């Protein structure tokens, strides 16, 4: 899964910094954002394979950020990090289009597994879009 592009979003900067270091040790290309606003700016100019998003953030919380990220790119694979006993929040996130959710503190291998799955999904979506585009071109040319 070399070079999967991942965005980590959390207002606890120290948390994202250390998690980013660990994911980079696993050959991921990691970006960080300290709030939803920064995450939206980054998502506007970069396509990520996975976004790891904290549920509870000041100003723009995880669910609002999730909704706005999906408005920018409906294909984004977003993994929510929730607090203990936040199953309803996680379910709500899935209903809103999140790929999955994990309880904080998350196990790195579980997170890596979700990121791997997200990368695979994004690759399938990109391949499908390419196939569709080629199909459209061929159709237009009457082939």
């Amino acid at each position, binding site marked *: 899964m070399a070079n999967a592009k991942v965005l980590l979003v959390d*207002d*606890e900067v*120290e*948390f994202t910094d*250390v*998690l980013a*270091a*660990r994911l980079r*040790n696993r050959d991921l290309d990691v970006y960080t954002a300290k709030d939803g606003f920064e995450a939206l700016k980054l998502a506007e100019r970069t396509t990520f394979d996975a976004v790891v998003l904290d549920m*509870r953030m*000041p*100003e723009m919380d995880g669910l609002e950020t999730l909704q706005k990220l999906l408005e920018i790119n409906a294909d984004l694979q977003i993994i929510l990090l929730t*607090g*203990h006993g936040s199953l309803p929040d996680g379910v709500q996130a899935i209903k809103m289009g999140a790929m999955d959710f994990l309880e*904080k*503190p*998350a196990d*790195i291998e579980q997170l890596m597994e979700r990121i791997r799955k997200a990368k695979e999904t994004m690759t399938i979506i990109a391949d499908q879009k390419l196939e569709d585009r080629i199909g459209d071109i061929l159709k237009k040319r009457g082939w």
Partner: protein
Amino acid sequence: MREHGEAYTLECDLAFFGKITASFSHEINNIMSIINEYNGLLSDMVALAEQGSELDCGKVAHISRNMSRQLARGATIVKRLNKFAHSADEKVLSFDMSELLRNVSAFSQRYAGKKNLRIDEDIPQEAVVIVNNPFRTQHAVFLAFQLIADGAAANERITIALRREGDQVVVMVSTGRFEERANNPLRMDLLRSLLSTVEGQVEVIERDGGGRAFALRVANLS
């Protein structure tokens, strides 16, 4: 003003207790998550060292210092949570109002963060000891804070101040710009009900330039 009965006030007390303890537990969970990542980073380094890489002792020391700092941060939060939980032990206690307000200020940070508000404290360093109901007093101050925060313009400052006035203490919660549409009569009634149980009262002060302050007077029952 609508008079709230004791049953309703108790129900609101319970909701306040739940909200604040949930907020504390969220902060503690954040700290545990950071320590978890540092611990994981150390494990990663050990795994690499076992494969022949040199262990960077400077980096290990740096991680250890950061873990200690997070543990100290956690200890402060646990101390505050403990103070908060014990404030409900007795209806009337002798307590330090300065410390109580610093605690309220700390657990109000997240609420303030929703609108990027900044909390300034104008609280004496020395103890201001009074006899009253610390839990109800905290509840009233936090409710006043919420009322001011809900009406404050984004990025504003909210000041929590304390002064003695004869036998009473006065807690002032204020902001420089308050939006009129944020008035919440039901919550104001609850604030008055809470304060009446600590032989206190609230005065709403309009300030030049659109500011608003709540002056909460709390009796010293000693």
